[in-house]
């Protein structure tokens, strides 16, 4: 596996991040459901990993999404949105390293989605504890957002194998006759 991403993969990661931020911005206006962002994050993060087959692609997608959200003023903007997108991504990449080739691809994606959801919920929980929220209240909110987030994340992850099949059928993941530059 080559150590760095070629420009094609880098751009695809960036475009996935853009689509993630754009759809999140639209869904926020229509759904207002806590946890729906985990559906999109697990979907796009895992598609990036599936298309590039490189560890680190999820983290890069998360960081790109955070930066784009900052630049485009999605959500409340600011630097903390980098954490919102980046933390689940980093957690999922760490999970990838730990999982290696254990389990089938589908189950690996589902476990990674749950890991990402846990990280996403933890960010809010840590923030709440740091601002002095009562531990019981903070844990309750953590548990609730974990549950909702995980359900959405698993839903997103279960679509990823189907998407990768389509991309493979389109010959966009496997390139014939071209050196991998």
């Amino acid at each position, binding site marked *: 596996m080559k150590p760095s991403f070629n420009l094609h993969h880098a751009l695809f990661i960036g475009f996935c991040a853009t689509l993630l931020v754009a759809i999140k911005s639209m869904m926020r206006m229509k759904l207002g459901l806590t946890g729906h962002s985990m559906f999109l994050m697990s979907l796009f993060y895992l598609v990036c990993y599936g298309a590039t087959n490189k560890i680190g692609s999820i983290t890069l997608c998360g960081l790109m999404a955070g930066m784009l959200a900052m630049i485009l003023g999605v959500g409340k903007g600011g630097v903390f949105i980098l954490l919102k997108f980046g933390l689940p991504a980093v957690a999922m990449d760490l999970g990838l390293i730990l999982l290696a080739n254990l389990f089938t691809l589908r189950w690996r994606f589902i476990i990674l989605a749950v890991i990402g959801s846990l990280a996403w919920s933890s960010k809010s929980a840590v923030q709440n504890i740091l601002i002095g929220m009562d531990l019981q209240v903070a844990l309750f909110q953590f548990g609730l957002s974990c549950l909702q987030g995980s359900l959405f994340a698993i839903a997103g992850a279960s679509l990823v194998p189907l998407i990768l099949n*389509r991309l493979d059928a*389109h*010959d966009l993941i496997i390139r*014939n*006759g071209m*050196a991998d530059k």
Partner: protein
Amino acid sequence: MTLLALHQVELQHQSTSLFKQLNLQIAAGECHCICGVTGSGKTTLLQLMAMPSQFNYQGQIYHNQELRLGLVMQDPNVQIIRETIGAEIAFGLENLGYPAVNMLNLVEKALAQVGLTLPLDTLISHLSLGQKYRLMVAAQLVFEPNLLFIDEPWAQLDNQGIKELLNVLEYLLSTGVSVVITEHHSAAFSSIINFHWRLDKGAIISSTMPTLDDSCDLSIQDISRQAVLTADDRRVYDQQKPAAQSVVYQAEIDKSLSLLTLSPLNIQFNDQRPVLQLKETLALMAGDIVGLFGENGCGKTSLFNQIVGVDLANQTRISLLGKAPKLGLYGAEVGFLMQRPSRQLFEMTVRQELEFSLKRFGLPLSNATEVLTQLDLLHLASHSPHKMSYGQQHLIALASVLCIKPKVLLLDDPFAGLDNQYFARVIACLTQFALAGGAVIFSSHRPILLDLVSKSWLIDQQQLTEQCFAAKAVSL
């Protein structure tokens, strides 16, 4: 001086040989044209010659030490990287580390060479397609290439755009720059071509004098003559066609019935700038084949979008099948093929792609087999549509619209980028569709198939009018 040479080059693609023992030499100041059917590998050949290190090929590709290459691909929209014309041209200079103060002169010079005398911070989104194409040429000229590759410009550009490009290429050739063009329709560039080649079954064959038998260079009139039924043929067709073999409609359609009526209307951009104006009432009758012609950016797609209800402006001035347009209102009665129709393909096989609509509209799945047979695509039914050539994907998208047997068929630039074999199949299909009582509107940025159409709707200087062209077609 030989700038570039290929010697016994071979390339594999999806476990088949795309190129077999290719040999080619390009010397300074020459203009070469390489023809070939869709899927023959013209674009891949250009990319291979330009960037051989990105391919696993056999044989030798020789680049002269003094070679400076430029490559302009088919669709400018997927090559544009920046927002303003100055920044776009300077992109290459940025990558080579040119000092900022040196960039301005070079960018200005490149723009002057292609005749784009616009302010440097002009937004690219405001340019016509022809201007964008010349911008892409300028983005290559800033490197002062001595060999320029151009991929299929004819399909992208209207006649004005082709004229502008020809001027640029003539100027470049006069300064000693070599040009290689890949093209279906090489006649448009015959005034500058020195060497004419054909890419056929993986080999390059010299073809200095294109003939009518040459599959690359059949004029569009000839294709339409071959494909269109004569009046006698139509009578015989009507008398003899067995019901099982024809496209049968549930109800007899009254050919004097107007399926679409356009009352006087105006189409505008979001910022209220006018696009086109219709001052008379136009009608589409059963059995009509209408050509909607106009240059790029004149509003053809906007008109189609309003007719089918994608855009609800002018809703009260349009009557389609007796109703004001609304998205999804017409079900299987209206078929609409948008530009770049291959982007709608998502199923795993061709048959599934057609059956998607049939299932949603509750129509017999046997329609898929019928239409695939009609378009000579039945052998591809279980294949993935994504691994097919551009022309085949185009036909599959058309098949997915035809199989629902609509009353009205709207086709936005359906012939773009199609070579002659697919052209003929589409024409035959549309002819049969109209003979069976359907009505078709197809758009193009140049008047084509004038033997085929029952009437033409022409957009010229923002005015949409109904026109009857003379029997002798205007091709360029």
